[in-house]
C-alpha cells in the first residue's frame, strides 16, 4: 500500500540548470500537491509527458528524495522518518540507477540479496526463478557492461526483486525495450499483481497504461489532473481512447500553467 498525501517537491535549480531549462526562476515545482493511493493487488499507472514529475514522485516514494511538503506512507512506514523500513519493503527500478557494469548479473543479485539480509538458499532459489523467467540464465556470468540494453534492464528488474518486495515501484519499465521484451516485463508485473503486491509504474505510453493499469493517474506539470480506471477517465472526458482523453486534459491544464 502506498499513500501519497499532498506531496510537493520543489527543486532548487543551479545556474546551469536554469539555463538548460530556459527559466529565470531558481525554483522548480516538479510535483505539486499530489495525493494518491495505490492498493495491494492493483497496478497504479502514473501517466504523463516528459518532465511531468513522474520520476520525482516515484523517487520520493522510494525514499531517495525528501518531500518539500506533504508525506508518503509505504506499508505503514513514513518515507522520511522510517526510510530504512520502507526500503526493506520496496523494489525500485529507474533508468538513472544502474548495476555495476564490471559485475555479472549473478554477482549483483547475490550482493543485493545479502544487503537485504535474504538468506543464501532463498537468494539461490529466487535467482533461478527470476533469471529463467527473464531468460538471463545464459548470460548470468557475463559482465553487465557486455549485455544488450534489454538484457541489462531485465537484470535490473530481477535484482530489484531479490528480496520479494511487497511494493513494486517501476519508473518507465519498458523504456527502450523491444516489444517482445516489453511484453515479458508487463506480463511479469501482472503476475506480481496477482500475487497481491502493490505495483506503481510510470509511463508515457498510452497503450501500456490502457492494457496494464487498473488505475491511472494523469499528471501534467506536477499536478494530478485526472484519476480513475480507464473507463472512468474515458467517461469523464467523453472520449474513446486514452490518447484522446489525455489531449483533452492536456489542452486545459497545460494552458493554465502559462
Amino acid at each position, binding site marked *: 500500500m502506498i499513500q501519497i498525501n499532498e506531496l510537493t517537491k520543489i527543486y532548487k535549480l543551479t545556474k546551469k540548470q536554469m539555463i538548460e531549462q530556459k527559466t529565470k526562476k531558481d525554483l522548480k515545482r516538479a510535483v505539486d500537491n499530489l495525493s494518491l493511493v495505490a492498493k495491494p493487488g492493483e497496478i497504479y499507472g502514473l501517466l504523463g509527458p516528459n518532465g511531468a514529475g513522474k520520476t520525482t514522485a516515484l523517487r520520493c516514494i522510494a525514499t531517495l528524495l525528501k518531500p518539500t511538503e506533504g508525506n508518503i506512507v509505504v506499508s505503514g512506514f513514513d518515507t522520511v522518518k522510517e526510510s530504512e523500513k520502507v*526500503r526493506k519493503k520496496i523494489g525500485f527500478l529507474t533508468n538513472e540507477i*544502474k548495476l555495476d557494469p*564490471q559485475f555479472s548479473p549473478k554477482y549483483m543479485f547475490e550482493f543485493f540479496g545479502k544487503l*537485504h539480509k535474504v538468506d543464501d538458499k532463498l537468494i539461490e532459489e529466487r535467482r533461478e526463478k527470476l533469471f529463467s523467467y527473464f531468460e538471463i540464465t545464459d548470460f548470468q556470468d557475463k559482465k553487465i557492461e557486455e549485455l544488450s540494453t534489454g538484457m541489462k534492464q531485465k537484470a535490473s528488474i530481477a*535484482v530489484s526483486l531479490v528480496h520479494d518486495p511487497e511494493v513494486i515501484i517501476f519508473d518507465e519499465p519498458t523504456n527502450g525495450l523491444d516489444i517482445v521484451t516489453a511484453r515479458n516485463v508487463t506480463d511479469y508485473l501482472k503476475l506480481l499483481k496477482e500475487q497481491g503486491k502493490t505495483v506503481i509504474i510510470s509511463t508515457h505510453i498510452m497503450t501500456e497504461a490502457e492494457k496494464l493499469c487498473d488505475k491511472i493517474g494523469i499528471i501534467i506539470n506536477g499536478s494530478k489532473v485526472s484519476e480513475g480506471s480507464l473507463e472512468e477517465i474515458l467517461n469523464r472526458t467523453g472520449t474513446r481512447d486514452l490518447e484522446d482523453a489525455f489531449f483533452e486534459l492536456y489542452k486545459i491544464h497545460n494552458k493554465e500553467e502559462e
Partner: protein
Amino acid sequence: MDGTKHIIKKELTRIFTDKKMIVSLFILPGVLIMVMYSVMGGLISNLEEDIETHVPTVYIQNAPEDFEDVIKELDYQANITYINSQDSIDSIKDDILIGDVELLVVFDEGFKETIGSYSSLGDAIPEVRTFYNPSEDYSGVARSNFNGIVLNTYHHYLLTERFGNTEQLQVFHIDRDPEAGVIVDEGKASGKSLSMLLPFLINIMLFQGAMALGMDAITGEKERGTIASMLLSPIKRSEIVFGKMISLGMLTSLSAVIYAIAVVIGIRNLSGGAMGEIASMTFTPLQIIQLLVLLIALVYFYVSLVVLVATFARTQKEAGTYVTPLYIIVMLGGVLTMFSSGSERGLEFYAIPVYNAAISLQNLLVGELTMPQFGVAVGSLAILASLITVLITRAFNNEKVMFNA
C-alpha cells in the same frame, strides 16, 4: 555492520577481478617508480663518480720553477697549461664562467724572490690566488683538490726550505688518521638522509593511491549511477560510507606497500648506490608499531579527505580539480621536512595535520620520536578524520549531494 562487510568484499572483488585495474593501479605505477628510482639513483652515483674522476683543466700563471717539480712528484692529475705574466687571463675567466675551464691559479710576480727576501715582520708576503666557479661541480672539486693536494704540499715544501725543521711550526696535529675519529650511530646516519626523502615519498604515495582509487569508487559510481542502487538497500548510510572507506584504506595501504617495495628495489638496483643505506636500517619493535599506527592514521585521514571531496564532486573531472590543491598541500608538508629537522619543534606542531605525519615519520626514522609527539600526531589525525567521516555520512544523506536534487 553486515552491510559494510558485503560492500568491502564487493569493492575488493571489483579491483582484483579486473586485470586493467590491477595493472593501472598497482603494477604500472610500481614499475614506473622502480625505473624512476633506478635511473635517478644511477644518475646521482654516476655524477658523483664522474666528478671524482674528472680530469680538470687548470691554468697556472707565473708558476715558480720548482712548483712544476712538486706537481710531477705528486702525480696530480690535471690538464695543466702554464702561462706567464704577459698572457691575458680574461678569456680564461670567461671559460671558467661557462664551465670549459675548471681552475685558474695565479702566483704573484716574483713569488719566489719575494719569499726569499723576507727577513722581518712587515716585509711583503706573496699571494696565490685561485679563480673558480662554485656553481660548477667540477670547478669546485678541482679547486679544493688543488688547494688540498698541491698548494698544501708546496706550502710545506717552502716552509721546510726556509726553516729546515718544521715541527717548530706545526705546534699540533689535527686528526692524523681522520677515519679513526668518526663516531657514528649507523642507523641514525642512514636514517638521517632517508628521513629527508621518505616522509615526503610516503605522504605522496599514500595520498596518490587514495586519490586514484577514491575518485573512481565514489565520484565514478555517482556518475555511473551505481551508488544510488546501494542507497536503495535497507542499510544505514554510515554502513555504506564505512564500507567504502575501509576498502579504500585497504587498497591504499596495499598500493603504498607496493610503491615502497618498488622504491627499495629501484634503489637497491644501483651497485653501491647513493641510497643503498635503506638496507642497513633497523627498527625496534616499538618503532615498528609506531610506524604502523602512524601509517594507519595517515591512511584513514587521507582516505577521508579524498572521499569527502569525491562525494561532493559531480564528475570525476570536478573531483580532480578539487583534490589537486589538497595534493599540493600534502606535497608541501613533505617538502618542509626536507629542510629542517624535527627534534626542535614544539609539541603543537604535531597537531598540524599532514605536516605532523611528515615530521613524525622523519623523527621516527632517526629514532627520535617521543611518545607525546607520537600521541599528539596520531590523535589529531584520527580526530580530524572522524570529523570528516561524520561530514561524509551527512553528505550521503543529502539528496542535493547524491542526486543533484
